[in-house]
């Protein structure tokens, strides 16, 4: 059997399994650590996946790498690995994670360092090659603007050198497969499409062909259901009136028993809080899907419209069906750029005429700031800050004014909060609780790049 450049011999073939169990212990960079420990300790897992990269996470990580070339991996990497490693080794679990962020090589070295401190030898693989910022600066024709984002064109054609700070391709299974074949116990990647973190071990263990797009589509569905961890176990789902969830404080993260035919049963560790049912599974299946007929990953264009979900027991969902056709000829590349400095300030009004006083404050600030700022947002928190639509207004006994604006420099952005603070002596009566913020905003645009321009790289570390 042959896939990519990995050749399996007869011995490997005989080792292939009919069922594997993969747990997902993190759904974003800042996720809780406890559920991952519970999974590693009691989940009887074959693999643990920690998914830790949102759209902008790498751009921020790249800023840390620029400041210190040994950084740029996930800020929680040390804490996560220190606590998880003993359980992973004791229970013979392989870890696959994108905690490498902007610097998977240094992330891998850090993991080796932690293992040494704990007196154990492990084999760690870094998967890189996703960082294409160098190519972005020399080639223009290879990059195609995605989703009609006109700005991307201008960005790449004219302004790239000053403001681009990251460009990372969403890689697929290739580098991870190579690392699994090389017996790495921990695989740490940079930008990889989330479902690929789950699909790679399925391909490795079941011997699926990498052009069997039906199976790859099925595996991608399972990966998509798992990738947000707590999303399928009742996290970000609970509504005490309509969708009660028990023991939220002890929310368990999911594991999937995946079968070689591409079906799976998703469940969680006995005794943990949360819930897995048809409702949690449906919400997650549709989460962030922009076309259920064609869900693009670097590995396959998957079909979600034929997925079948069944509740087969308490906290047990069977997933079957789904499929796929071919794989895209391009990789999606997220380009991070310095967009602007954001200045913000907030102040509260309560009691009689709270809304009227807040509105007077908002209008006063707008008049004071208008000459200097083009793009100003005024919100009345408690009235219209989340639903910016008059239909959603309710009467409250208190209201918080928020004002935000875009600025070219940090000092200019600071003026927003300063003006809010100055309402203490230059604004309406009874405002309190001023907070002010200044943040540099990294914008993200997406471009498509030909597959053959980008090569995943797998590097092994041990001792």
């Amino acid at each position, binding site marked *: 059997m042959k896939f990519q450049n990995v050749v399996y011999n007869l011995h490997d073939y005989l080792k292939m399994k009919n069922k594997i169990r993969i747990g997902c212990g993190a759904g974003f960079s800042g996720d809780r650590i406890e559920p991952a420990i519970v999974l590693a300790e009691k989940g009887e897992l074959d693999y643990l996946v920690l998914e830790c990269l949102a759209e902008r996470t790498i751009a921020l990580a790249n800023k840390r790498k620029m400041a210190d070339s040994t950084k740029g991996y996930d800020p929680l990497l040390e804490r996560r690995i220190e606590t998880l490693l003993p359980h992973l080794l004791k229970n013979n679990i392989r870890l696959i994670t994108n905690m490498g962020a902007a610097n998977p090589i240094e992330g891998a070295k850090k993991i080796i360092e932690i293992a040494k401190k704990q007196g154990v030898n492990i084999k760690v693989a870094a998967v890189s090659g996703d960082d294409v910022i160098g190519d972005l600066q020399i080639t223009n024709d290879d990059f195609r603007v995605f989703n009609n984002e006109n700005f991307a064109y201008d960005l790449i054609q004219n302004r790239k050198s000053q403001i681009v700070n990251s460009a990372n391709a969403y890689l697929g299974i290739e580098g991870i497969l190579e690392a699994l074949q090389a017996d790495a116990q921990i695989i740490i990647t940079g930008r990889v499409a989330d479902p690929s973190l789950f699909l790679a071990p399925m391909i490795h263990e079941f011997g699926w062909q990498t052009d069997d797009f039906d199976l790859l589509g099925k595996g991608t569905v399972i990966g998509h259901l798992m990738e947000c961890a707590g999303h399928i176990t009742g996290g970000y789902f609970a509504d005490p009136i309509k969708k009660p969830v028990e023991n939220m404080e002890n929310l368990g993260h999911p594991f999937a028993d995946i079968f070689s035919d591409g079906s799976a049963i998703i469940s969680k560790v006995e005794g943990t809080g949360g819930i897995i049912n048809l409702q949690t599974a449906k919400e997650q299946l549709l989460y962030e899907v922009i076309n259920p007929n064609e869900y693009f990953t670097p590995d396959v264009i998957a079909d979600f419209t034929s997925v079948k979900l069944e509740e087969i027991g308490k906290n047990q969902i069977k997933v079957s069906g789904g499929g796929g056709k071919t794989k895209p000829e391009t990789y999606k590349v997220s380009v991070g750029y310095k967009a602007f400095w954001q200045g913000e300030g907030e102040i509260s009004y309560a009691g009689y005429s709270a809304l009227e006083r807040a509105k007077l404050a908002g209008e006063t600030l707008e008049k004071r700031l208008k000459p200097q700022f083009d793009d100003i947002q005024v919100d009345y928190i408690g009235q219209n*800050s989340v639903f*910016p639509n008059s239909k*959603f207004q309710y009467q409250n006994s208190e209201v918080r004014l928020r004002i935000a604006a875009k600025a070219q420099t940090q000092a200019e952005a600071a003026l927003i909060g300063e003006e809010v603070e100055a309402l203490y002596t230059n604004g309406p009566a009874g405002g309190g609780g001023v907070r002010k913020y200044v943040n540099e905003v990294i914008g993200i645009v997406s471009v498509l790049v030909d597959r053959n321009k980008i090569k995943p790289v797998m590097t092994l570390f041990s001792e």
Partner: protein
Amino acid sequence: MKLYDIAHSRAGDKGNISTLSLIPYNENDYEMLCQKVTADTVKKHMEGIISGEIIRYEMPNISSLLFVCQDALAGGVTTSLRMDTHGKALSYALLTMEI
């Protein structure tokens, strides 16, 4: 009747696109939702929030609808000045719709 009484929803984001699922608690309500909650009625309900085109996907396999809304996030997750830059709370804006 409000959508909230018979269905649930989760919002997702990609760039300047918001995705809103609509999932009836009782699968028998799916056909009725297909009739009453169209791309047009949602567009009207979300006026002032979503400025672009809305495409509705029917998913009979899970008795659910998916609304993919263009120009919904004031320029996009990463550069919007809104409080809720991801439009995470827009699921509950959809559920306030009267049918």
